[in-house]
C-alpha cells in the first residue's frame, strides 16, 4: 500500500482513525516508506543536520561535522551514536516504595528491593526518553545499535547521505 505524505503525517501525529490505520497495518508495505518518513521528519525538526536514521520518538542519528551523533528534536546533542545515549541523560531512580507509589497505586507497582524504575530524561528539554524496570544494580541497557552503512549500502543500494 502506498500512503501519501499527508496520511503518513497524520499517522505520525496519532490522528489516523482506525478504519484508515488498519489497512496500513494489514496490507503490503510501501517499499519507499523509509524515505517518506525521513522527509517528513527532516521538515519537522528545527535544526539543519541531515537525519540518517530515526532512532526514537524524539531522537535521531544525524550527520554533523563528519560524525554521526544522536540528537534530540529539542536540539540537545548526545554524541557518538555508537555510545548508549542513555549515558548522557539526566536520570531519576525510583527505588523506594514512596517514589514508586507516586506513579502506581499501592500493590500495583514493583517492590523496590526486587526492581526499581529508572527514568531517562533529555538534558535539554527533560522529555522522558525511556523507562527501565530493572533490579537494583542492573547495567543500563543499550537497546539499539544500528548498522547504518550496511543498511544504506546493502539494503537500500545507495550510500548513506553523509558518505
Amino acid at each position: 500500500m502506498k500512503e501519501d505524505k499527508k496520511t503518513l503525517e497524520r499517522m505520525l501525529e496519532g490522528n489516523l482513525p482506525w478504519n484508515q490505520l488498519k489497512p496500513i497495518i494489514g496490507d503490503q508495505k510501501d517499499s519507499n516508506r523509509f524515505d517518506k518518513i525521513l522527509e517528513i521528519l527532516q521538515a519537522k525538526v528545527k535544526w539543519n543536520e541531515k537525519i540518517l536514521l530515526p532512532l526514537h520518538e524524539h531522537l535521531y542519528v544525524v550527520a554533523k561535522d563528519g560524525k554521526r551523533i544522536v540528537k534530540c528534536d529539542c536540539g540537545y546533542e548526545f554524541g557518538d551514536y555508537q555510545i548508549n545515549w542513555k549515558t548522557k541523560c539526566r536520570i531519576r531512580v525510583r527505588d523506594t516504595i514512596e517514589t514508586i507509589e507516586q506513579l502506581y497505586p499501592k500493590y500495583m507497582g514493583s517492590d523496590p528491593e526486587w526492581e526499581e524504575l529508572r527514568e531517562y530524561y533529555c538534558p535539554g528539554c527533560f522529555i522522558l526518553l525511556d523507562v527501565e524496570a530493572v533490579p537494583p544494580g542492573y547495567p543500563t541497557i543499550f537497546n539499539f545499535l544500528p548498522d547504518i552503512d550496511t543498511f544504506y549500502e546493502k539494503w537500500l543500494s545507495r550510500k548513506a547521505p553523509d558518505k
Partner: protein
Amino acid sequence: MERKPIGWNGRTLKEMLEESEKRLKEKKSYYGIEKLILKEQNPFRYERAYASLRGALVSARETALHVAASPIVTEIGELCFGLYTPEGDSIAVSTGILVHVHTMSEGIKFMIREGYEDDPTINQGDIFLNNDPQCGNVHTTDVQTLIPIFWKDELIGWAGGVTHQIDIGGITPGHTLVSSIQRFDDGVYYTCLKIGSNDKIWRDHMITAKKSVRSPMYWELDEKCRLSGDLMIRDAVYDFIEQEGIDFYKQFVREAIEEGRQIVQKRVKERLIPGRYRAASFMDLPMKNQAWVPIARVDKISNHPNEIIVKEDGTFSLSFDGASAGGANAFNCDKGAMEGGQWVLLTQILIYGDKVNDGAYYAVDKDYPLGSWANPNDPYLSYQAPWGNLIPAYTTMMKCLSYGLFARGFREEVVPGYGFTGDSIQGGGVYNAGPLEGERWMLSTFEISGQGLGASAVRDGLNWGYAMWNPESDLGDVETWELFQGGIPYLSRKVKPNTPGYGKYRGGANYESVAFIANSEKVEFFAGREGLVFHGSGGMHGGYPNSTSYRLLATNTNLQEIFQNKQDYPISDPDPSNGDFEKLLKGNIERKPIGTIYPISLNNYDIIHFSESGGPGYGDPIERKLENVKQDLDNGFYTLDVVSKVFGVVAMFNNETNEWIIDEQATKNRRNEIIEERKQKSLSFEEFWEGERKKITEGKLYEAVKVMYAESLKLSKKWGKEFREFWKFPESFQIEVS
C-alpha cells in the same frame, strides 16, 4: 523379517532427517532448495495448492472443536493443527494456539531420532500421544496427537493436533501448577507414546489416561477432538494428491517451507534495520515463605536478557545469553517451549500475512544457554509452568524488533510488549450440595487469553484482547467458565482502573473479577502472575510498564448474610489502599503484593479477587492528548490521581453531563510542574552510576537479586564481562550469596 524403510525412495525416516539437516547446513536453505521451481513454473497452481492445504487445516480445527472438546477448547479455540513433512517440519498450520506448531515438529523429530520406525513401528492408522516437554512440548498440560500419513508404502507426512487440558493430574489440580518443583509433580507424562492403531484409540490407554487426570470426561472429549482433526487433515492430503499428484506434493511441501524461510529474510530486509538490539525482562518467584519442599523455599528473580543481531542477509540471531539459572521451581523452559515462543512471535510480528510454517524456524539462529532457565538440561526438574519465564522473556523479542520497525518508518507495527497471560487462578473442589453433589469441579478460567497488548507508536494498545501464544485470543464468557468451575461463581467482571502502562499512547486495559466459593468442600486455590516486578521488558520510548498484580482474598466472610439481606457486596477493588472489600464486608480481608501463590484452602462464602494484565505504554505520558485522557477517565481506565500525577492532567467530573472535563490551563501548569520536578529530582549519569554501583558493593541488594546476578555471572562469560566492565569491577569480581 526386516521391514522395508517407510521413507521416500527406500530410505528410512532417520536417513531423510539427516539428509534434510545436512542440506540445510551446506546450502543454508531448506532441503538445499535453491529455486522455487513450482512457484516459478505455475504460480497460480502453487498458491492454490498452499491455500487448499491451509484451508483444510483451518477447517479441521473449526470442525473438530465441535465434534468433541472440553469447554476451554470449544469456547476460545484452545487448539491448533499442523501438517508436517516426513521429517517433522510444518508445511501449513491452522489458526489457534500457534505456539504449538513447532513444538509438535520437535515431537515428530524425537520419534524419528529414537528409531520409532523400527520399534514401536510407524504404520498407517497409528496414533501417537505426546506431552513431554523434553520432546518438544511446552508443558504437560498441552497434549498432542500425531498421526502418520502414508501414500502406498511411503510416509508422506504427519498430521498433528494439540489441545490444552483443564487438568493434567499433577501435584495439585490445575493446568499451570506453581507448586511443581520436579518432573514427578508435573502430572501424567506421555513421551510420544503409541496409543492406537487402525485409526482407533486403544481402550486400555483411554482407561489409564482417564484415571490419570482429575477431569476424565474432558480428557476423553479432547482426545477425540484431536484425532478427528488429524483424520480430516489426512483426508484432505489424499484429496490434494488425487488432484495434484504425489510427485507435485513431495516437491511442493519442501518448496513451501523454503519459501517460508525466504519470506522471513524478505520481511526483515523490508521492515527492520541491520544492527544489534537488546532488551531485558524479569520474573519474580516469591517461594521463600510458601514452598512445601525445603529446596524450593527460596525467593528468586529470573533474568531474561535478550540480544538480537539482524544480519546483512536478512537472517537474525536471538540469544538469551546471560539468563539466570533454572531450578527447583515450575518455571523452567525446555527447548520446545523456547522454540515455540520464538516461532509464534515471529509469525505475529513479521510474517503474519505470509506462509506461516517451519521456514520461519530455520531463518533464525537461537541460543538458549545451557544451565539457564531457558535450557536447564535436567529432565528431573519441573517444566509445568514454563510460561512463568517464557511469556515475560519473549516481550524482549517484540520490543527489540519494534526498535527496528520504528527506525524503518513502520511505526504502526511497533509493539513494545504485552501483558502477562495471567491472572492464572486455579484449583478446584467438590460440590457438597446441589445436583452435582459429590462431583469434582476444576477452577481453570481461561479468560487469561485476553490480555492488554502494548501501545504502538501511533495508537493505544488493544484492550483485553491479546495472548502471545494464540493470535486469535478471546477471554470467553463467564457462563462458559462456570460450566466447569461452578463451585466458584462470579460476582462481577469489570474494568480495573490503572492497569494500562502509561504513555503518550497507553497500553491495553483490562478487567478485574470477583468470585466466591459456593456449595463446595475441599476447595484448593492458587494463582500465578508477576507481583513484585513489572511484567516483561516494560514500555518503550518513555512509556511505562503496565501495573503489577496482587492477591486479594476475603475469608470467614458475612457474604451469606449479605445475600440474605440483599445488601451490597464488593464487585471490584478500584483503589487497593482504600478498598470496597473493607467497606462492604466483614471477615479476614488480606492483600498480598505477590501474584504467584501456592495452594490454600477456601470455604463456602470465601471471596477471591483476580485481575488480568494491561499492556505497556509508549512515549512520554505528558505528551498524551487531552481528549484521549478524557476518554481514559470516562472509560474508567485511569483514576483522577494517576491522571494528575503521571499524565499531568487536571480534570473535574461534571455530574450534570456525567463526564469528565479537562482544565486545559491547569493541565498546562501541572505539566510544567512535572518538567520542573524532573529537573530537580534527576541525577547526572555519573551520580546515578555511583549510586547504583554502591548498591552492589555495599551489599545492599536483596538476596534474590544477588542470586540472580551470581547465576548470570556464572553461566555467561560474555554477560559477566559486560557487567564487570560497566561497573568497573575487576575480572575476578563475583557476587557472594549465602
